[in-house]
């Protein structure tokens, strides 16, 4: 069983490394993803519209703010579910 698990882990790792070969080099500006007009729109608009220099935060909390509110709600709900299922009650 342990050998099987090790085999599965190694296989998954090898697949990830193999897939990683296809990634564009870091900072490459010739990829389709970079030249997509949505990307260009965010790169141009982030600093002016949201006022924060970090683009990830601007997307997370400003452009996709509603999504992040949902994420936080998911974490809160998960916490409450664990509370209800596992918490020992003093009887």
């Amino acid at each position, binding site marked *: 069983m342990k050998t099987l698990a090790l085999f599965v882990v190694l296989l998954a790792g090898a697949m990830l490394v193999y897939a990683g070969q296809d990634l564009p080099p870091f900072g490459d500006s010739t990829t389709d993803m970079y030249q997509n007009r949505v990307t260009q729109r965010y790169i141009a608009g982030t*600093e002016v*519209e949201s*006022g924060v220099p970090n683009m990830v935060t601007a997307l997370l*909390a400003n452009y996709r703010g509603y999504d992040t509110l949902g994420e936080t709600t998911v*974490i809160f709900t*998960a*916490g*409450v579910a664990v509370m209800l299922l*596992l918490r*020992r009650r003093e009887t």
Partner: protein
Amino acid sequence: MSRIQESVIVRTIVRIMVPFIELFALYVIMHGSGGPGGGFQGGVIFGAAIILYAMIYGIAKGKERMPVTLDKILASTGLTIYAGTGLLCLFFGGKFLQYGVVPLLPDDPAEVSALLIDAVEIGIGITVSAVMISLFFDVSPPESEEEELPAELPISTYREA
């Protein structure tokens, strides 16, 4: 059977480290808008500080530091801060979470947006840290099975041992 860590080195190092880890968590949360970081990461680091303390000093001591009731209140407070920020924007005539409309600094909507993003990050951080701590306490063994150790043993006790 869970054992409280007895080694005086570990206990002392943890007592020194915990405030710095908490400080670093606050830095990561507040730095979220200017660099790598944010509410989720900072909240987890803050939770890890309390969890580390509870692991070394025992669950009972940890719950003394972070009472279960306070934890419950904090978990929902963070989410309320986030949703409240969104409702504040509705109140001033914008869309939900459209930060620019809030008249905090009258001439610069981008600056207001940056401020409110920080508020939102703080809300996320509070919720995430409270949920992390409550998860740890929920899956930890009951306090009654812990060995009780005095908080501070005199140094002579360790010399004799």
